[in-house]
């Protein structure tokens, strides 16, 4: 895993495994780093931050970070802050869900249509924020 990259935005999803919103946060993150803003963004394991992995801590301290949390507990944001990471922006799936009340994601392991749609909408918001951060 590269940990010395510079000028990339690190997008970090919550690792929510118990609810669909955690899966949406991960899918939105992959949509950004593998498709929408491939090359200028990267992701890392939130658990590596939680467990204090030195290389990963260095990564989040030397690059701008965007957190994408599933629920209001905001584990990703809290852990990046606790690690001393450069938190530039944070998103919550629940906020995007409030803006799109017609979507009702249910499946956790493999996202259903509504989960995919919600992730796609959130990914676009995150991608716009990436552009903002890279211009600064």
């Amino acid at each position, binding site marked *: 895993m590269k940990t010395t990259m510079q000028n990339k935005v690190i997008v970090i999803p919550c690792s929510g495994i118990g609810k669909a919103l955690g899966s949406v946060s991960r899918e939105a993150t992959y949509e950004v780093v593998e498709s929408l803003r491939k090359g200028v963004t990267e992701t890392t394991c939130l*658990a590596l931050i939680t467990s204090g992995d030195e290389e990963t801590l260095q990564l989040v301290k030397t690059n701008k970070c965007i957190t994408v949390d599933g629920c209001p507990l905001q584990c990703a944001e*809290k852990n990046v802050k606790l690690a001393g990471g450069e938190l530039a922006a944070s998103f919550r799936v629940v906020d995007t869900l409030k803006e799109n009340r017609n979507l009702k994601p249910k499946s956790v392991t493999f996202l259903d249509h509504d989960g995919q749609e919600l992730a796609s909408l959130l990914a676009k918001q995150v991608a716009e924020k990436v552009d903002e951060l890279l211009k600064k």
Partner: protein
Amino acid sequence: MVDLPEKKVGIISCSGEACVEGTISRVATRLVLEKLRPEETVTICLPLFLAGGKEERAFAKYYPTITVDGCDKLCAKTATERYSGKPASSIVITDLTRNPGCSRSGRRKLDSGALGWAEKAAERIAKEVDGVLDHWR
């Protein structure tokens, strides 16, 4: 997510967003929760340990846990030991797949081969659950 009064085993998966083995660990965990041992298991979001999830910490302190890690960094095992207690069992996906290192392909959506490994890992976790519950009872 956490049901304290009943006898249950907590399955704690690494988040592993950066590599395919992390996704295998999450999917394997979900297969155990949803299909193989739905009545006997619960899961805990790993970073809640650090974010101050009191219920999660308490569960892992007083109930048996099985950690499932994607790679040899052992984040789930390390964090569980640090914030709650020694897990009853620990599984590492790369030990099962014999494919060390983090591959970035398939981390978003497992291909059929990786899904097969997730199913095998889920069966292994289910056996560990049975062993832990037998010992507990």
